[in-house]
């Protein structure tokens, strides 16, 4: 597959992520902050997000598994996950966190467990999508091409 085709595939794939709500405008902001002096900025920040999220999801699983659930602690973890997903533009994860926090307030354990499953699912989905995206970018760069800049006009 030649570079032009690969670039076209990347653009289409990125567009679909936005259309399906996996990513929002904040992700474009991240891409805009990437330049020659910081060529791996997006990958770096998203990697931080992956590490942070996995730790938080583990902490949440443990916290909700306790006999006496500390809802304040659970809420704090969800707040953090909401913040980091919002910062990188992982829209569906962020929305799942917002719903989760509402149930934390109500101190509804069953609902919280359900939300945790939802958040995990959304997280693994977006992780998969982003890893695919980065792989496509690497293929283009390896073939000597450049990453096309996305615009908001879709």
């Amino acid at each position: 597959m030649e570079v032009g085709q690969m670039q076209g595939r990347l653009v289409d794939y990125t567009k679909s992520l936005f259309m399906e709500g996996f990513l929002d405008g904040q992700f474009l902001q991240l891409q805009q902050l990437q330049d020659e002096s910081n060529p791996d900025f997006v990958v770096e920040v998203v990697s931080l997000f992956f590490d942070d999220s996995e730790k938080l999801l583990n902490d949440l699983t443990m916290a909700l598994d306790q006999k006496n659930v500390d809802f304040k602690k659970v809420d704090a973890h969800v707040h953090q996950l909401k913040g980091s997903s919002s910062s990188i533009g992982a829209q569906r994860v962020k929305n799942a966190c917002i719903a989760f926090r509402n149930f934390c307030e109500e101190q509804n354990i069953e609902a919280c467990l359900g939300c945790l499953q939802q958040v995990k699912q959304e997280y693994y989905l977006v992780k998969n999508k982003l890893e695919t995206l980065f792989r496509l970018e690497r293929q283009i760069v390896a073939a000597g091409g450049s990453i096309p800049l996305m615009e908001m006009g879709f």
Partner: protein
Amino acid sequence: MENTPPSLLVVQFKNQPRRSGRFWMKSAGSCFPNCQIFQKDFAHLPYMANHLKLTSPFLLSLHSHPHPHPTTFFCFTSFFFVFVLCFVESHLYLVMGMVTEAQFHVLAVDDSLIDRTLIERLLKTSSYHVTAVDSGSKALEFLGLNSSHEDEQRNPSPASVSLDEDQHQQDVEVNLIITDYCMPGMTGYDLLRRIKGSSSFKDIPVVIMSSENIPSRISRCLEDGAEEFFLKPVQLSDVNKLRPHLMKGRSKEMQQNINKRKGMEEILIPDRTRTRYNELEVV
């Protein structure tokens, strides 16, 4: 020392062709009629040295006269000094330009590593020098303020406290602080209060960021001295709003420096010019 009427002062050089340098010698000499130097015959000096001396009366006064006349020397140095000062003052706008071009230093405070990375990148893209810390207490430490309230109030000798703060402020110049609101331990709001309550740092503009859009929180921060309140995730357009606050702080700083310099000039110049005018008056 005999007084020579300025218009009649002519310098003769044996075996030297007439040069324009003599005009300068004459003019310079006419300013200092009490100066013996310009009445001397320099013919005995080597040609090249002579040429140089034609065009640099100041150097001449040093070289040819073993003990330059104190008034001459003093006049030259004062004239030179005044000239430099006038030059600097008239070109102050250049100096000011250089000062405003110097980088602004922003202190960013956020407990989230992702947000810290993001805000650092946003600020660096806008050509600011950035220091990022993960807590309010680390921010205070960086500035040189004690983390605990009590220490500042309990301190028996206020002079030593302010001296430390002042010294530290000179080492670490921060032009703006941007902080997250929700942080464990000291919140962004607590940090804001501490900064505004400090005599050394209350003039540093503070900006608060938060992921939560709570109007009462926003108005409380703004009322207590925050310049801006940004909703997260922070955008480049938000960071662009910081510049006016930074420029305002810098122009205030420069005005203080200019006032200081003006004060110094007023003390120095009158004395020296008065002496110079006295010299001329004697004629």
